[in-house]
């Protein structure tokens, strides 16, 4: 029997969702300040309206649905999934009011893409967007990479018991430190240190390339945010190709690959366990699959002779495949060049890289390195079991911060989530094909949306059918939250309608 949620359940969910939305409104103060600094008064008005809407909603639901009850597990999952939708709807206001979006759906698409660190966008005339809106786009992706709930955890939530449940619902389930708020702060510490160092490096590169100080600073900050969050947004429509600089590309590669690492791995390395980086199952898995997909892409592009020398081949193949594998979405080629220059093998190599994706508990998306590692270990374990005597006990373990025995429950969970990702990728590809797109291109775009990558081969555009826009929004959301909290939200809705 499905139990209908009680009034108290609604109150708890509404209250915590309200807190997250207040956090979104407070976040808008930063782009508002940038707009004021650049005297972009139209953008200032857009942000004042948007902040007011967030505050009215956030404080309104906390006032009308006031409760002192703490969250249960199911509440945490529903709040995580639900608050992303509400935050997307309200976060889209500055985009829509800017006049750069074709519709409110397009604005929501871009905001979901930002929160989920995807990087696909439908915004038009990006090269003439105000500094305030550009700040908001990149802040969205930086905040989304941390997890908007992590932000709320850090600044707005009382208590830790309920907070941990929302934290898990957002797809991050590792405690770097015993206390979840300490964990959230350790994540912030790593991210902020990288923010300072990465922005400084990009700023120096931009200045050296001839940008003025203000432009070099903001481009550095925004490119950092796009890279670290594996979001892929950039301030120019040519993305990072706009810089035409090997130095800028190498710095970006270091930042986006570091951004794709598990925060638990970062914390282990940062606190003295430096060998962890070559022992961790996720970094080993990542190094193998990145090298394999780069090998396929590089040899294929070398064979068909698209690039005239080894340096050009390296810069284009490695940058774009690594960007895909880390689910960043930065590119140094035109979208259609994936089709017209890279051809089917190049597209497929990039698609595989995107599908595998980054590390768990990172800013990235995709199936995740830990699941690839666990499934591969389980596969090898099964083969060893088959060739061993019947009486032999064959056990395997993997290393992730500490040694973990590989048991059936771990393998089953990894397989379940992997199958869910593959099913989502397939459904997106089929829908794209049904709308008349080439299947390989539709698969590329579907995997890009579902793995929160953001590379595009040209399918994503404001002229795309509305059904595909909605589908990609759902794929981005499902992929980022790793299904469970979204399923919990649907289950909650079903229980409201059909429960007794």
């Amino acid at each position: 029997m499905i139990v209908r949620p009680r009034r108290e359940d609604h109150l708890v969910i509404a209250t915590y969702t309200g807190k997250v939305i207040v956090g979104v409104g407070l976040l808008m103060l930063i782009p508002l300040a940038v707009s004021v600094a650049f005297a972009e008064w139209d953008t200032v008005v857009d942000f004042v309206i948007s902040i007011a809407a967030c505050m009215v909603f956030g404080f309104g639901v906390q006032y009308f649905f006031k409760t002192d009850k703490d969250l249960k597990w199911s509440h945490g999952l529903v709040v995580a999934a639900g608050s992303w939708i509400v935050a997307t709807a309200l976060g889209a206001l500055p985009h829509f009011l800017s006049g750069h979006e074709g519709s409110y759906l397009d604005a929501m698409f871009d905001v979901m893409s930002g929160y989920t660190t995807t990087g696909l966008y439908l915004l038009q005339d990006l090269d003439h967007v105000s500094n305030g809106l550009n700040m908001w786009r990149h802040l969205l992706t930086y905040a989304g990479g941390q997890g908007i709930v992590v932000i709320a955890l850090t600044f707005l939530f009382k208590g830790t018991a309920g907070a941990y449940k929302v934290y898990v619902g957002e797809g991050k389930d590792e405690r770097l430190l015993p206390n979840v708020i300490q964990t959230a702060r350790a994540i912030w510490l790593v991210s902020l240190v990288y923010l300072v160092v990465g922005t400084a490096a990009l700023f120096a590169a931009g200045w050296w390339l001839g940008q003025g100080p203000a432009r070099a600073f903001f481009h550095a900050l925004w490119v950092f945010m796009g890279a670290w969050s594996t979001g892929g947004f950039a301030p120019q429509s040519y993305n990072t190709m706009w810089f035409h600089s090997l130095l800028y590309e190498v710095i970006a590669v270091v930042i986006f690959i570091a951004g794709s690492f598990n925060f638990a791995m970062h914390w282990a390395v940062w606190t003295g366990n430096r060998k962890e980086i070559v022992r961790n199952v996720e970094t080993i898995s990542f190094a193998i699959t990145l090298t394999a997909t780069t090998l396929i892409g590089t040899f294929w592009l070398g064979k068909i002779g698209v690039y005239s020398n080894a340096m050009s081949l390296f810069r284009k193949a490695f940058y774009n495949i690594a960007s895909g594998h880390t689910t960043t979405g930065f590119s140094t080629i035109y979208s259609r060049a994936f089709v017209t220059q890279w051809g089917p093998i190049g597209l497929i190599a990039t698609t595989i890289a995107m599908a595998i994706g980054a590390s768990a508990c990172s800013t990235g998306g995709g199936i995740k390195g830990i699941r690839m590692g666990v499934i591969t270990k389980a596969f090898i374990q099964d083969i060893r079991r088959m060739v061993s005597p019947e009486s032999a006990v064959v056990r395997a373990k993997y290393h992730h911060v500490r040694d973990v025995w590989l048991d059936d429950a771990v393998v089953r969970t990894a397989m379940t989530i992997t199958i869910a990702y593959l099913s989502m990728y397939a459904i997106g590809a089929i829908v794209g094909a049904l709308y008349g797109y080439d299947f390989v291109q539709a698969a590329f775009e579907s995997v890009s949306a579902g793995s929160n990558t953001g590379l595009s081969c040209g399918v994503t555009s404001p002229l795309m059918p509305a059904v595909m826009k909605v589908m990609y929004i759902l794929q981005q959301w499902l992929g980022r939250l790793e299904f469970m909290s979204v399923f919990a939200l649907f289950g909650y809705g079903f229980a409201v309608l059909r429960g007794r």
Partner: protein
Amino acid sequence: MVDRSNLEEGYPTLTAHEHWGRYSAGMITEALFILALTLIAFGLAVIAMAIW
């Protein structure tokens, strides 16, 4: 606001000066690992161009 009574004793030391040496070493380790992967990719490009 955050209820600070829930924070464990270790929290204030996260940003203490004595940690920064280890943090910097960790960051450099990560950058070197990534640059090693980048060099491997460059080697692949050189081999690919040599073959074709």
